[in-house]
């Protein structure tokens, strides 16, 4: 890591640690908690949707499995922290099963399949007794006492930090390059010897594990879950949009996306009530139109030189258009 980046990371972490002490207002800490959780979720999604370019709109499946897993295991007497881990493992196993099926599909068909899997889980949770049907389940709080929400916030920041470091390690290593190759062109990737199915699956497993942890933390903070929240399409979409708005495939993108999107939605909710959804929508359209690589991706592109120099031996002075 370049030195200034390391210092920047340390500064951000220290700032995150201090934030909840600046305000004594639980409501504001709760907003910070949401930002941190969604930064972690966006970063987890980034492994699959950013690096590997597999546009999942079904991450609510893992989010919900983590939430329900925590509730169900603790209700059966399993210690809380072990339940958390078990819930994440269940989500990972589920990811292994759906990955094998969904990764046979490419492009929009893959995306549709991920939506379908999350919907199947939502309907299942609505109709089973063990999940409490549409009424849902109570979720234990992971921390006791008055500073409970502050502790939840710290847990979320740690999860986001770990996920960021996983992203960082990935971006600098062979698996990261392999995932990017898969994103750019699967045929080319396999022509250089990459087992594309296996690498996509590995990325999904890690992503699902972290997403389930995030879902469990989120559920624990609200202390009650219903299928229409935990497995909601809205969760899947929000996770994906956060990463894409900030810049899919970049390291800082999902973090920036979470901060901007959740802050904006909070501000607009207070200012414009229901109208905030409209503004939210318009913002997303603007970014997609004018910053297709996201905010961080767009900035990186500005900083990079564009025009390649010179021509090859035997080429005419006027270069033909590429990819003809």
């Amino acid at each position, binding site marked *: 890591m370049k030195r200034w980046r390391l210092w920047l990371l340390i500064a951000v972490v220290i700032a995150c640690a201090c934030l909840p002490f600046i305000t004594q207002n639980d409501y504001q800490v709760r907003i910070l908690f949401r930002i941190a959780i969604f930064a972690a979720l966006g970063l987890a999604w980034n492994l699959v949707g950013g690096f590997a370019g597999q546009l999942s709109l079904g991450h609510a499946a893992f989010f919900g499995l983590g939430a329900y897993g925590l509730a169900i295991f603790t209700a059966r007497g399993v210690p809380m922290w072990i339940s958390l881990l078990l819930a994440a493992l269940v989500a990972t196993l589920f990811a292994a099963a759906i990955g094998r099926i969904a990764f046979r599909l490419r492009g929009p068909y893959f995306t549709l399949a991920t939506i379908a899997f999350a919907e199947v889980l939502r309907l299942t949770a609505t109709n089973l007794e063990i999940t409490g049907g549409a009424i849902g389940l109570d979720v234990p709080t992971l921390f006791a006492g008055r500073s409970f929400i502050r502790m939840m916030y710290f847990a979320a920041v740690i999860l986001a930090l770990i996920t960021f470091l996983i992203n960082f390690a990935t971006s*600098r*290593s*062979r698996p990261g*390059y*392999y995932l*990017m*190759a898969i994103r*750019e*062109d699967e*045929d*080319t*990737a*396999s*022509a*250089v*010897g*990459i*087992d*594309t199915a296996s690498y996509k699956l590995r990325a999904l497993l890690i992503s699902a594990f972290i997403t389930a942890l995030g879902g469990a933390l989120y559920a624990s903070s609200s202390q009650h879950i219903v299928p229409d929240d935990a497995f909601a399409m809205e969760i899947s979409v929000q996770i994906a949009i956060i990463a894409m708005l900030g810049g899919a495939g970049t390291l800082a993108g999902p973090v920036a996306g979470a901060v901007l999107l959740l802050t904006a939605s909070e501000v607009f909710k207070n200012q414009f009530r229901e109208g905030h959804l409209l503004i939210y929508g318009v913002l997303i359209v603007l970014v997609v139109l004018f910053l297709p690589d996201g905010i961080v991706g767009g900035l990186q592109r500005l900083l*990079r*030189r*564009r025009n*390649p*120099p*010179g*021509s*090859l*031996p*035997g*080429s*005419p002075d006027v*270069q*033909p*258009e*590429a*990819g*003809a």
Partner: protein
Amino acid sequence: MSTVLELKNVSKSFGGLRAVRAASFTMNQGEILFVIGPNGAGKTTVFNLISGFLHPDEGSILFAGHDISRLAPHQTARLGIGRTFQIVKPLSSLTVLENVMLGAFMHTPSPHRAEERADKILDFLEMSRWRNFQARGLPLAALKRLEIARAMATQPKLILLDEVVSGLTTGEALALAQLIQRLPEWGVGVVGGVEHVMQVVMKIAHRVVVLDYGAKIAEGAPAEVVKMPAVIEAYLGPKYREMAK
């Protein structure tokens, strides 16, 4: 010379279309072999069969002693078959260097080593000054070289060059041909496919296989093949009929 690649009576159909019909040929170590034929003769299908993107309906393909007829593309690549694509498939948002590093990662997990290896190959292909530019937006001549560089970085025993000079000016094509001619120095055999740039084939091919409607109609040294009546009839046309006389 030892045989590296052998196709035995390979056939492949797409629905009712018989794209390759009982084609057989061999390729020796360090050889530059060109598969030529008119548009639709089955050249690209042959390359897809060898590299595992397609599997033959009948017949078998042997590479370095293994039957590779049923292997997946990433498995044939690991055995030592590199390939380029007729319609170039660069990893657009990655840099030229990163594109080539991806090939080099087959033999080392270290980005540093992969970079060293990639730099050597870029240097050989006279691509070094493009190193840090995104592959998107490069001119076609550079993209064709990038395809070769990426395949070379996997250290293949054999490289399949599908229409490697198509779309290039004559000058660009000849400059590239000179480099392809030197690939055996790197321990790489070449199977090239060319539709109509005979100039390049005549200059660098050791041997030529001619396909027409998926069947092999001739094989031999380039200078002999272009004189064969069947080849002239099916493919080369009257200009070569004059030359043959």
